[in-house]
């Protein structure tokens, strides 16, 4: 009777639950929030590239009162694209805190700001460790590495080519053409260790209002200005923050680019490649690792003990796989290290790999007892940070595990037995020899 709804709801849960699973980390369902629906067509190339990769895009106006990220405690989407730089308050029950909660529960976010970005957008960015220029009318201006265009402009169309050196984030193929960027710059909060500058401005750039005269020195200058940044949160949610919405637009995708002072005229700007590759990273199609089958045991044994003894020889192994977008492939690296840790690492070893995803090493437990941890802290630029800790106590010798008859003790044995014999003889002599 009442079972049917229960089963139904379980089914529903199952459907919702498989949206983002550790087994299949690639995002499937994406909510796109727009300022107005014209963006849908003006940025259609970008959206199409996502859709062809299998993503299910759900376009909504940012002030649509019906938008909701979650229902009954379950998130409805795996990722969020915020292409609504000017929106002051989102529709429905959505606000900055809800979006940050969305990220904190492991979901991804692409946020594009623009000149005159709203406080809401700025707040979300600030919470992710990125501070947009506080001047509302400021844009990034560069008089040396701007993109040459037909109309002599104010040098706010920038040809950026200072990319982060990471194959994981930007793909193996080198981005030849500069990326066109027109928008506001931001700085990265030095207190935040998780945010990365993906596209930086050139040393000659600065952030100011292009329409007015520069009266005071600009607050943001040079390569401290970041044009595009990414954050990989501790729960491996990924966030992309760009100061320019037009970077994703069809116009920039298609236009050619010639950097000022350069003779090379690129047919096509680097935007399409850059944006596609970085969204592959953001949506976990690349650089997503998982570690499984953490095993440790004594040499010559197979079972995992609950406690080790000092000076035991042990073997430790784990398997690391990388998500290729469709399947889990073995992850190959030569820099995965394991620590045997108690307040400080007592053993630090680089693990060997069989190229099939298995990493293994063996070492001797130090001559110190206590509660140790096998720690793998694998933090590499762009890839999922692996942080595994497994607690294991190490005990001292039992009373019967010490060496029994040591040579150094023979004099003592001799002394005690000769003493006993001597005492016996003395007693005999003393008692019966008078």
């Amino acid at each position: 009777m009442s079972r049917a709804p229960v089963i139904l709801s379980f089914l529903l849960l199952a459907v919702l639950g498989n949206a983002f699973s550790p087994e299949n980390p690639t995002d499937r369902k994406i909510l796109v929030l727009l300022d107005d629906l014209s963006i849908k067509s003006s940025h259609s190339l970008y959206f199409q590239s996502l859709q062809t990769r299998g993503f299910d895009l759900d376009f909504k106006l940012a002030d649509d009162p019906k938008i909701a990220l979650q229902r009954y405690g379950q998130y409805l989407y795996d990722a969020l694209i915020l292409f609504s730089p000017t929106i002051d308050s989102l529709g429905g029950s959505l606000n900055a805190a809800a979006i940050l909660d969305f990220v904190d529960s492991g979901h991804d976010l692409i946020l594009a700001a623009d000149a005159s970005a709203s406080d809401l957008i700025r707040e979300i960015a600030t919470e992710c460790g990125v501070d947009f220029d506080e001047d509302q009318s400021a844009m990034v201006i560069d008089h040396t590495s701007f993109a040459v265009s037909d109309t002599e402009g104010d040098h706010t169309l920038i040809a950026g080519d200072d990319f982060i050196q990471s194959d994981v984030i930007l793909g193996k193929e080198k981005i030849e053409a500069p990326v066109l960027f027109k928008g506001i710059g931001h700085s990265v909060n030095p207190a935040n260790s998780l945010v990365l500058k993906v596209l930086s401005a050139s040393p000659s750039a600065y952030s100011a209002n292009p329409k007015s005269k520069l009266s005071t020195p600009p607050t943001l200058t040079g390569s401290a200005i970041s044009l595009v940044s990414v954050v990989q949160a501790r729960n491996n949610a990924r966030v992309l923050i760009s100061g320019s919405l037009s970077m994703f637009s069809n116009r920039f995708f298609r236009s050619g680019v010639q950097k000022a002072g350069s003779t090379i005229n690129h047919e096509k700007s680097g935007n399409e490649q850059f944006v596609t590759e970085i969204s592959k990273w953001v949506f976990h199609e690349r650089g997503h690792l998982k570690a499984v089958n953490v095993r440790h045991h004594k040499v010559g044994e197979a079972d995992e003990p609950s406690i080790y003894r000092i000076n035991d020889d042990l073997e430790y192994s784990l398997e690391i796989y990388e998500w290729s977008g469709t399947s889990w492939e073995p992850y190959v690296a030569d820099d995965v290290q394991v620590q045997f840790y108690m307040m400080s690492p007592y053993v630090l070893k680089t693990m060997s790999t069989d190229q099939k995803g298995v990493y293994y090493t063996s070492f001797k437990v130090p001559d110190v007892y206590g509660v140790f941890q096998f720690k793998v802290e694998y933090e590499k630029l762009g890839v999922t940070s692996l942080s595994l800790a497994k607690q294991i106590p190490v005990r001292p010798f039992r009373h019967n595990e010490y060496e029994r008859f040591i040579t150094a003790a023979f004099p003592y044995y001799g002394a005690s037995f000769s003493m006993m014999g001597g005492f016996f003889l003395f007693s005999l002599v003393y008692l019966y020899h008078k």
Partner: protein
Amino acid sequence: MEKATDLLSSSQSMFSLKSLKLKTKQQELLLRISILGLVYILAFITRLFSVLRYESMIHEFDPYFNYRTTLYLTQKGFYEFWNWFDSESWYPLGRIIGGTLYPGLMVTAAFIYWILRLLRFAVHIREVCVLTAPFFASNTTLVAYFFGKELWDTGAGLVAAALIAICPGYISRSVAGSYDNEGVAIFALLLTFYLFVKAVKTGSLAWSLASALGYFYMVSAWGGYVFIINLIPLYVLVLLVVGRYSMRLYVAYNCMYILGMLLAMQIRFVGFQHVQSGEHMAAMGVFFLMQVFYFLDWVKHLLNDQKLFQAFLRITLTCAISVGVIALGVGTASGYISPWTGRFYSLLDPTYAKDHIPIIASVSEHQPTAWSSFMFDFHILLILFPAGLYFCFKRLSDATIFIVMYGLTSMYFAGVMVRLILVATPAVCLISAIAVSATIKNLSLLVRTKTKPTQAGSGKGTTSTKASSKGALDQSLPYQKNGAIALLVGAFYLLTRYAIHCTWVTSEAYSSPSIVLAARGAHGNRVIFDDYREAYFWLRQNTPQDAKVMSWWDYGYQITAMGNRTVIVDNNTWNNTHIATVGRAMSSYEDEAYEIMRSLDVDYVLVVFGGVTGYSSDDINKLTVKFFSPFFVISFSVFLWMVRIGGGVFPVIKEPDYLVNGEYRVDKGAAPKMLNCLMYKLSYYRFGELTTEYGQPPGYDRARGVEIGNKDIKLEYLEEAFTTSNWIVRIYKVKPPKNRW
């Protein structure tokens, strides 16, 4: 029917009167045994107040560790216990339990448990643990009887047994539930002393072997054995100096020392200390001195020439002493002989701990004793003690010299540390018993001899008995009989007062389990605060199995025993740095503390807070020794010591930062660091919203009687996880690091 029974009973009584007419000696024996039997039972039942008032439970702090280990011993067997490496305490260092405890108590309780199981009594080990201390207190009365008999006479023995059975100084550590080493150790201590005195008196190898075994039991039970191993050599030395050296002494001491030492080495925690530690060197020195003495005696026996012997004596003594001094010097310099420990120093110099080892000074039972405590714990014994000493000096023997030395040294130590009143108690009881017994005996003799001559009528000069001599004396003092009767009544009155005082103290002050707090409500009814157990059971039920709880070390044993969770520090204060790290975390700002807690993998923080109930011994309180109500002496000065111990290792923590004009304050005038340190924040989080007392502003701290200074406390890195119903225990969860930073 009634008639028949009447008849029966009367005939029975007639019969029994006739046939069981006992001789005086037999009567005396019967009387003695029944008195002793009653005292034995009395000693047991007077310690049951706590069970009746509360329930059969383990008290205080250390007993919880003892209980936990005993449980482990009974479940896993002796070898597992011996090799136990405990990963639940002192995270992440762990503790080798088997090698760092005195196993005597646990083995005793487990043994009793196993015997009871063998006899088909299905008892729980907790009941055995709860009743171990009263049981051994009863046994102590027997030893006291025999000791008193050995020192003086059977009367003194009986009085000693009765006095020690109810003496508050002993009861404080041996009520039911106070399952601590001392409960067994005082029995072992007195037994060892008794057997040694017996051995010296008889010169028998058997008695001194028995005393060595008693010593072994004492070593296995309590660290206070150091007192024995220093008092006995001192006693021997005194006997040597006053010329009471004898073959009996030689046999008794040598056998006891050598066997006792070898046996004591079998205890892992003691190990080679008998030959390697400075505290045990006195015994060894006296042992060699004895040999020199014996050798000299022998030479003297061989040599008839007095002059030659004098020269020989001089050479031998100089050689022996210089060899001894050189050996000690070389041993100490090379590090083979470890220097005296801080605890030992603090006994010799009461101010030492305060300046050098805050961890020892931070425990209230290590504070110098207040006068009131003496009065509280000894009552009339304090007055009888000097009288007893007088009697001992009047009848000097090897045995009385021993008890005098035991009494005087232990009284000194009792003055240095509150908890050592316990060690002094048996001596005080024995010496007072001598005073009581001797006085009453003399007085009653006076009373009886006075009546005899008047009845006999003839009186003068007929016999040369004592009675007549007393009678003769009496005539010179006409009011002596009345005076004696008055004095007897007075003594009886005093002893009655003593019994009343002891019962009152036991019931009011020493039977509180301190894990359950009781207070009087507004209408005189008893209010029970069971917050500790509430909190520990919350931990047990609601936190992950491997969660690590940080608290001040006082609560460590209880958290592991009752909450079954890993703790960072506990009452076994073996690692000062680790404790100081916790102290530093508690007295730092929240962000600094967070770093420390992350490095120690802390999941939960537990603080004890008395602001709502007015419970004064909470974490934030300062040292409050209340002279007029000594049962609050056991109040820890925890926060002051957190700062002090933390600052002792990490100079970043400076005590003056927390003080205002040399005073600890928590109200508006408190130091800014005080108002924002972790301890303060955790204690007073959300306290500003609470009205605790009628007519006072919200945030009124009843334990300190002030309105708190920082009512708007925001926690950034921790969140409140649980607060008990009376706010006594508050538990906070350490948040994981921020996701996006």
